[in-house]
């Protein structure tokens, strides 16, 4: 699971907060979208170079 770090400056307590299932789903979708966009960009660049 993905997580964030939370520091409470009043108490000094540092916590590792795991993503909820919903947050994880959003995260995974964003990562997949970025990977797809990068793949498309690479393919476009290769097409341009071979043209």
């Amino acid at each position: 699971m993905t997580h964030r770090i939370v520091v409470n400056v009043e108490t000094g307590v540092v916590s590792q907060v795991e993503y909820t299932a919903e947050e994880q789903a959003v995260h995974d979708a964003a990562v997949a979208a970025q990977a797809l966009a990068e793949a498309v960009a690479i393919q476009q660049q290769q097409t341009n170079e071979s043209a």
Partner: protein
Amino acid sequence: MSTVIDGSASVTINSGAILGITSGTAVASTSGTSIDFTSIPSWVKRITVMFNGVSTSGTSSIQVQIGAGSVLTSGYNAGVGLINNSSFTTTSNISSGFATIPTGVNTAAYIHYGQMILSSMGSNTWAVSGNFIYPAALNIMMVAGAVALSGTLDRVRLTTVNGTDTFDAGSINILYEG
């Protein structure tokens, strides 16, 4: 009667503010997609966010966001520029936060050293300036901007623009003062 303040202990004034500068807790920026400093006191007028070798896993720009009750993710009037020893310059307007590096420059190898200072202008508006360096390439980044919150600032978040890259090196801390 005279009062001596010798720095051996904090002094609290009527509004609850602590005189002097208070340090947060330094944390390793070696995992997670964001690092939040929460429960920042309402009397705070200036916050210094310090980076010591901060790095991420990807190419998205690192950014600092602030919030009142929740983190503000848009509406920042901010920009960031970069210069280096071969006169390369680039700038970006990034409205999702106060970015530490222009768009398209960050890599997984990038390491940030430096600090960003957030100052209260009153009426929940905060102005920012900051400088960072990536020593290996002698790249120097400069950030400036301002943003208005809907309420009293109570949190500072370090994250990336895409929100999915993870931190993988360094440490971060804040100082705050009234």
